[in-house]
């Protein structure tokens, strides 16, 4: 490597840091500093009425995996916590897949409109989200409840004879989550499809590829960055979702976000809440890194 080239690389790295610095400073103040507090809290003992006592204690961390039976003091595996974690991961995964399945065609549809109409369609997809999340969630409930619009219409049409019970089921929760997180999938997908050179499709068809082959071999590899961005934006916030499970899930079966909230609220066990959050953070970070590594590894091969 020539000295000139080395200097160029050094400059490039310097500018990378300089450009990222403003965002990093804001994040350090408003996102990372709070996180450090939470890490400290996870090693303290809980206050009687919530809050913390300034004594070192591992009870929060022990509580992630084990619990004392309140009656006979027997130590046992906190299977409830694991159930909640697993349930959250499953629901988030299904939500991500569903948002992709409906979001990809939607993004494709928007990106293939004539250039002038594209911005209009984009606005159309974001406008519902200018309405508050709580109102939207209530309105969804209004549609799917037993005496709601959907069941009434289906019954009038003679498709079903008795209402489909959706209120407070996992299906209701999934419908709500897909709705809420859809734009987080559609917009990044749109951003990549939009710069996709449609002539590649012609090339594909000219080589007698089927539509499925073109989709798999030409389109998907190129829009991959959008898929990655979209699935991160959907999956990760889904894991910590709070409002939708509370309103549409009926509060009987929690997701991890609600469970952590419980510890900071009525459960009055801040250290356990803090330890659970850090655990969640570690799991998500590992998953993210693995995901990004695999993806960028693949790219090098191709």
């Amino acid at each position: 490597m020539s000295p000139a080239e080395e200097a160029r690389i050094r400059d490039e790295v310097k500018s990378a840091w300089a450009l990222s610095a403003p965002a990093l400073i804001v994040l350090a103040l408003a996102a990372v500093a709070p996180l450090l507090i939470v890490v400290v809290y996870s090693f303290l003992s809980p206050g009687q009425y919530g809050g913390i006592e300034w004594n070192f204690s591992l009870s929060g961390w022990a509580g992630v995996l084990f619990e004392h039976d309140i009656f006979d003091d027997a130590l046992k595996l906190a299977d409830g916590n694991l159930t909640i974690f697993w349930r959250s991961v499953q629901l988030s995964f299904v939500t991500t897949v569903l948002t992709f399945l409906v979001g990809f065609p939607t993004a494709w549809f928007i990106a293939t409109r004539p250039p002038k109409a594209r911005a209009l369609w984009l606005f159309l997809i974001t406008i519902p989200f200018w309405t508050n999340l709580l109102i939207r969630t209530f309105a969804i409930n209004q549609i799917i409840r037993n005496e709601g619009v959907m069941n009434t219409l289906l019954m009038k049409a003679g498709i079903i004879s008795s209402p489909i019970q959706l209120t407070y089921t996992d299906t209701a929760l999934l419908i709500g989550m897909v709705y809420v997180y859809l734009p987080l999938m559609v917009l990044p997908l749109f951003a990549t499809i939009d710069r996709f050179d449609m002539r590649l499709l012609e090339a594909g068809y000219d080589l007698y590829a089927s539509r499925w082959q073109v989709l798999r071999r030409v389109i998907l590899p190129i829009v991959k960055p959008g898929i990655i961005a979209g699935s991160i934006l959907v999956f990760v916030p889904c894991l910590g979702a709070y409002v939708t499970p509370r309103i549409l899930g009926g509060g009987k079966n929690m997701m991890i976000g609600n469970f952590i909230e419980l510890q900071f609220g009525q459960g009055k066990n801040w250290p356990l809440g803090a330890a659970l959050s850090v655990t969640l953070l570690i799991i998500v970070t590992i998953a993210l890194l693995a995901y990004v590594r695999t993806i960028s590894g693949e790219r090098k091969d191709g």
Partner: protein
Amino acid sequence: MADRAKRSFAVTDLPGFSTIAILVFVALYAPILIMTLYSFNAGQSVASWEGWSLDWYRVAWGNEEVKKATLISLQVAAAAAVLSTALATLAALGTTRRRNFRGQTFIYVMINQPLMVPEIVTAVALLLVTAAIKKATGYSGLGYLIMAHTAFCIPFAYLPIRARLEGMDTTLETAAADLYASSWQTFRRVTLPLLMPGIFAGAMLAFVTSLDDVVITEFIKSPGQDTLPTYMLGQLRRAMKPDVNAISTMLLVFTLVILSAFFLLSRNRK
């Protein structure tokens, strides 16, 4: 040229995609229609229909609290969207389309960190941080909310911009540089316009994300800083009043008017 455009348009059709897209749009608007409908409901409840009336518009208009909450929501969301998109654009330019360097993963993890922590955790911790600053400085304005919202909006703005940048053709930029354009000119005239759809998508995401935030806002708001979501959260235990439907419908109509005006103007200019 026109011929080519027509042909490429046809090959972009994928079976069933348009149908799914149209269904998605219908589904997206169904709850919004319900909300609009119920804002004209004569009854007290948000859930049972009792005939047409404009009562809730009157109530909402006379309800200082809900009006103020709406304004604060919009202010915070607009400020946070602008700030976070600007910061995210810079960071995306700094982290894409260059050789891998040490610390890249670190930056990536930092930027996505707000996504990975449930809101309540950030909220509780931010409460302590902001309380300390409030005690020290006596400042209790909207700055805290804007700062916190900006932070958690950054990943939402960053990811679409990065997705757009990644693999964006560098030939045009190189060409511009070859024609002795300064790096600022190249950025302003070539990179930025190409990046615009990503920036736009990012800003929209940041805006709606800020608009929906409940938990963090609930914990760090100062007196009188209820946003629409925290105002509604407070009502959750009692009966939800349909005046929020009315205010949301008004907000929606307002948005539509602004956007249509924007479209007509930009069309005329072209």
